[in-house]
């Protein structure tokens, strides 16, 4: 009996294997009419503010597809919700690779999340392109993980900028730091200490929270009691907004530095509603994409293109004023350029080669002068930014463009 079933099973397996090998010629995810890529972003949960990083990219691909695609292939971008939980990122990424047979993983969001999937993707040889995290390791450890490349400026470099700026402009200030208790928050903290250099003692209090905590109220109270007059927010949007709110409720008005992950103008608007205009006024951050609400860009061709794409393709309930959409379009633009470079019939090897040999000077969504550049020994596509100050409900950039590493 059992023998019969096993035999039947083997026959079926053989049949399936033959069918599968017949269908799967060439590179997975690449057909004459389509390129299938996929990625994870938090669509729900604490970090859902980031969903437009994925959605913005998907709108740009729709626009590219409507204009003929790349080498007559349409780009199919499968977005999955990981709820900002690395275990789910792993499960969903596996699904993308093994069930949806994607050509590459693209623009998946989160430091811990991409760290979780990196060994797997490198073991199976699937490109992990332009991860939405500024952890240095995605740019520096390419010898060990040759299928992985980052995108945005590194968090450590960003922290260094704030450190240098404080040391130069306010050497007497007392600094309090709120950071996420993982590689992302710690990288910013390391950078800050490095930037402060000899003035590292200016940091008088540090408090961390976990990504799955519900509130940072007690952390803010402890930071306030340190009598600091400067607050570094190395936190994701929901927690940054809370930090503004609780500081306001406690009557604490420090000078705030908010990391780029949470400084999108729509998030700042929410922080302003949660606290007061006064509490948020004067906050400092950095930027490298064009802010769609900035009046300077009202007539800019890049933002005009952005607005027209949003008008045509955006989902209901998504605001065109959300700058993460611009970030998403920028990274999608970079992918399209890499894909064009990867040849008529792209392979996983050729897309990796293209992604690591890029020079894009005209990305319409990035600040003027910002260049996407990679070489075989430089795996940081973006490493330029400008400082900006929140004034009267808008970001105003000051100082020139500088290189961050």
């Amino acid at each position: 009996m059992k023998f019969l079933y096993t035999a039947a099973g083997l026959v079926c397996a053989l049949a399936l294997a033959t069918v599968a090998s017949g269908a799967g010629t060439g590179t997975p995810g690449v057909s004459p009419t389509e390129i299938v890529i996929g990625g994870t972003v938090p669509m729900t949960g604490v970090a859902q503010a980031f969903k437009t990083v994925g959605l913005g990219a998907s709108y740009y691909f729709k626009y590219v597809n409507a204009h003929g695609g790349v080498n007559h292939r349409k780009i199919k971008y499968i977005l999955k919700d990981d709820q900002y939980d690395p275990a789910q990122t792993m499960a969903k990424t596996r699904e993308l690779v093994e069930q949806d047979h994607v050509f590459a993983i693209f623009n998946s969001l989160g430091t811990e999340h991409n760290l979780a999937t990196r060994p797997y993707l490198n073991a199976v040889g699937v490109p992990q392109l332009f991860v939405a995290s500024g952890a240095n390791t995605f740019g520096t450890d390419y010898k060990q993980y040759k299928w992985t490349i980052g995108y945005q400026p590194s968090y450590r470099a960003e922290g260094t900028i704030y450190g240098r700026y404080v040391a130069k402009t306010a050497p007497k200030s007392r600094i309090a730091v709120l950071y996420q208790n993982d590689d992302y928050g710690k990288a910013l903290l390391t950078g800050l200490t490095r930037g402060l250099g000899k003035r590292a003692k200016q940091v008088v209090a540090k408090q961390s929270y976990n990504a799955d905590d519900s509130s940072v109220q007690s952390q803010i109270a402890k930071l306030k009691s340190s009598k600091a007059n400067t607050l570094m927010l190395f936190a994701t949007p929901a927690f940054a907004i809370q930090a503004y709110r609780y500081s306001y409720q406690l009557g604490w008005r420090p000078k705030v530095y908010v990391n780029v992950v949470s400084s999108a103008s729509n998030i700042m608007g929410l922080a302003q509603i949660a606290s007061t205009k006064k509490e948020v006024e004067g906050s400092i951050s950095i930027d490298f994409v064009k802010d769609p609400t900035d009046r300077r860009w009202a007539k800019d061709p890049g933002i005009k293109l952005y607005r027209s794409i949003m008008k045509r393709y955006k989902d209901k309930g998504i605001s065109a004023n959300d700058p993460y959409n611009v970030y998403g379009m920028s990274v999608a633009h970079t992918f399209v350029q890499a894909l064009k470079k990867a040849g008529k019939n792209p392979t996983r090897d050729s897309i990796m080669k293209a992604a690591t040999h890029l020079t894009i000077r005209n990305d319409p969504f990035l600040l003027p002068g910002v260049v996407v550049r990679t070489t075989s020994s430089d795996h940081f596509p973006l490493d330029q930014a400008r400082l900006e100050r929140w004034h009267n409900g808008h970001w105003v950039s000051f100082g020139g463009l500088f290189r961050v590493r």
Partner: protein
Amino acid sequence: MRRALGIGLWLLMAAAAVGAFLLVPHLISDFHSRDLAEAGVFFIAIVGLNLLTGYTGQISLGHGALMAIGGYTTAALVVHEHWRDVWTIPLAGIAAGIVGFLIGLPALRLSGLYLALATFAFAVAMPSLLKKFSGLTGGSQGLSFLESSPFQVTGLKGTVTVFGHTTTANHFLYYLTWGIGLVGLAIAWLIVRGRFGRAFRAIRDSESAAASAGVNLPLYKTLAFALSGVYAGVAGSLFAIQSEIVNPLSFTVLLSILLVVGAVVGGLGSLPGLVIGALFIKYLPSLAGHVSTRPGVPDFIYGAAIILVVILLPGGAGGLLRRLFAPLTTWLYTRP
């Protein structure tokens, strides 16, 4: 004559079950066999929960936390002690069994709702406990196997060779999980049909009657908890091996409640129906997501489905099976 026929039919059904177990992964895609392996994890935990709740009448809302004990035992042994992941399964079962025994102690004094609340508290506290002892558990980031060597982690190499026979990792996980599941089911069946089972059922139906009939209440209650803990621990270990990451978010209160839902849908006090219960909690959420992805709608459908099952099938899938086969079994077991 009828008796022989009954045994024959029974053997045929067992063979069909084993045949289906062997055949199924070849009929579906490689990835779906991994999905089924995940359902197998629920199956094992539900079989254990059913021994406790269905047969002994002790409600536990803390089985997700027992799975956490098993999952973290495996993860800690792989990450800190460099064990091969599959060899940690027995230890994970034993660890969770011991914890199950300890939770069983308050059960000697608590009953009904109060016991449910105590176990619920255990489930609520578990994620915080895991974060507290971050040296061992990795805190809120948890433990990831993926940095370990491919010789320790089943899922990393893509294929697994057992006795010179090579299968894909997903098929291996399916056979491993459901193989353990079927053995676990057989053991549970042997337990419930013998002396232990009679004692368990006596406790469920009336504690005082059981005590007056000479059933050692403290012994059998804590034994039921410990046994059930072993099942949960093995399930948690397999869960960790499959997902390759464990973190506090994997073992929230929701998991404990899902297991109870699975046991109720499968049928309390029945064993074969539990396969349906496990498939129900594994696949219904994603099926509900196919109907509509608007916020709230999948949850609504999920909730409605559970209510419908409870109203229409008070005995769960096990009860339905029993009713379907009632004419046959009556005919077989009634003397002419």
